[in-house]
């Protein structure tokens, strides 16, 4: 970056500057096509993975991916690392629990209410925190989510949240959620289509937003907030909108989590939840929209398989150090680099073959190559 970066901008170390490409509708259509194909193929997963335990891991990863997706969106487009998205996820989960258990709402209404409440919280919190950048933003989001956690475990909140006991969701008899009974909801294979569709649709929405003109504005703010202001742009509102949008995605994840689990542990609002999701997103990489999702799937898989002797956090920590030191762009970032290197070599070979003094043409080719590379 040639721009004047704020001195407290720690995010620069964690986020590789990503060039987000937009514009050409052709690419957009291809992307949408791929998204729909992924959606359809994914729906077949319960027929392939028949083992309930494996299926429940995949479902957990899918739901947690929405949290990571929200965190990743802020990191990718604004370079802002949030520890507050766990609060939206958790608030939405509790909202589902309270609406169904305390108020006797139908599950569908409860889910809609939960997403709205989570988004509203993101709006209020966003007004307070999105002006901060780098470290300030990180700490403020952490503080606010910790405050919320403390509120949720107060004795006086027991009626709503169950305090330290957690919240067991109990339904009115014969309630169904989009055709699923309470017993069906807990079945990972039957709940899968909802979680998977929600994840893919959220991913597509965030991807499209990222490539829109609004996405360019966000990139401009990420790269040089001051110059954006001096170019006539409001830099507060776009950051707030991005924060609320990513918070809504996290809320959707939280609501689905509560529907599937039927029980909410207070840990959901705790630091560990938000931290784990951020770590998963970092390991996956922020450079492309899939990064946090891949990171979350790996994280959930590793958590389930390497949790021996209570050393899970030690292993997590080691892995994080390895990734940050040797793969600064995360797993997806490193794959992209490898891919570019291979393509780079191809180009050199073909350059040598075709060297015939057409400098201008090859310059142009270089420019378009550069552009193409940045589109990855």
């Amino acid at each position: 970056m040639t721009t004047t970066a704020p001195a407290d901008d720690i995010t620069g170390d964690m986020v590789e500057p990503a060039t987000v490409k937009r514009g050409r509708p052709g690419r957009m259509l291809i992307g949408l096509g791929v998204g729909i194909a992924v959606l359809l193929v994914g729906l077949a997963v319960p027929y392939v993975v028949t083992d309930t335990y494996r299926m429940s891991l995949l479902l957990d990863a899918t739901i947690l991916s929405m949290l990571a997706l929200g965190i990743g969106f802020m990191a990718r487009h604004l370079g802002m690392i949030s520890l507050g998205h766990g609060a939206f996820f958790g608030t939405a989960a509790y909202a589902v629990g309270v609406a169904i258990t305390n108020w006797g709402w139908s599950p569908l209404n409860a889910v809609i209410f939960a997403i709205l409440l989570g988004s509203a919280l993101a709006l209020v919190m966003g007004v307070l925190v999105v002006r901060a950048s780098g470290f300030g933003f990180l700490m403020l989001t952490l503080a606010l989510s910790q405050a919320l956690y403390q509120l949720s475990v107060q004795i006086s909140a027991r009626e709503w949240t169950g305090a330290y006991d957690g919240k067991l969701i109990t339904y009115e008899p014969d309630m169904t959620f989009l055709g699923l009974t309470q017993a069906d909801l807990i079945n990972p294979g039957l709940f899968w289509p909802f979680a998977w569709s929600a994840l893919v649709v959220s991913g597509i929405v965030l991807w499209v937003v990222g490539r829109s003109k609004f996405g360019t504005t966000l990139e401009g703010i990420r790269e040089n907030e001051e110059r954006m202001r001096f170019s006539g742009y409001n830099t507060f509102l776009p950051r707030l909108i991005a924060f609320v949008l990513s918070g809504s995605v996290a809320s959707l994840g939280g609501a689905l989590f509560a529907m599937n689990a039927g029980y909410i542990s207070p840990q959901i609002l705790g630091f560990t939840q938000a931290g784990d999701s951020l770590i998963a997103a970092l390991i996956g990489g922020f450079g492309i929209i899939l990064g946090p999702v891949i990171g979350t799937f790996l994280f959930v898989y590793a958590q389930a398989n390497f949790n021996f002797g209570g050393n899970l956090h030690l292993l997590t920590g080691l892995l994080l150090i390895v990734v940050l030191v040797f793969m600064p762009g995360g797993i997806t970032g490193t794959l992209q680099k490898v891919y570019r290197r291979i393509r780079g070599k191809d180009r050199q070979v073909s350059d040598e073959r075709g060297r015939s003094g057409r400098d201008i043409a090859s310059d142009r080719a270089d420019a378009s190559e550069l552009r193409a590379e940045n589109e990855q």
Partner: protein
Amino acid sequence: MSIFEGRGLTVKYGAVVALDNIDISLEPGLVHGVIGPNGAGKSTFIDALSGRKRPSSGKVLLDGSDITRRSARWRRTKGVSRSFQRTSVFGSMTVGEQLEMVARKNDEPDLEGIMKTLGLDEIRDRVCSEIAYGTQRSVDLAIALIGQPRVVLLDEPCAGLVADESVRMLDHVRTVCKERNVAALLVEHDVEGVFRTCDVITVLDLGKLLATGDPASVRADENVIRAYLGSAA
């Protein structure tokens, strides 16, 4: 009436008076140079005029109305733009993308014309952080010129440029100012460049106004010679 004025601008950093009661007025189509040795308050001056730094006292007027407390964004939408001494561009974006982005906010009928004038049309697809420093300075200038601003405040556009790049940059500034009838303020270190380029010159020293007028009279001014040019020439 001048289009853009600073009246009695004073900026204090604690007990230090960085800018002491300075007046300036800009006219459309004229390049107004501001020179002065290091610490003269040139950058503070442009910050105070552009809304980056609120003056301790004094006023900034646009078309005669007080805009001292208006935000940078508001000023830009009303036609007051600025460039930066430390190159301020959008590193990860291509040259074309960032200029289009700025043009989207500030109606610009002739973006191609600006890019051609500044020699940026050839490199529109290059990522900005990968182009030469001198070219980045041109991008910085282009960003300030988009949207037909009526007033352009340029903070050392030639900082870090080699001699011939510097000459070209100042030529561009003058051409654009005349072609588009812009009121330009040019804060610059390169004294000879300023004398060559500007129609009016203001000299600052230690936050005080030393002289103002056309290049010939400023060059002949005793105070200026004593405080500034004398030691250089």
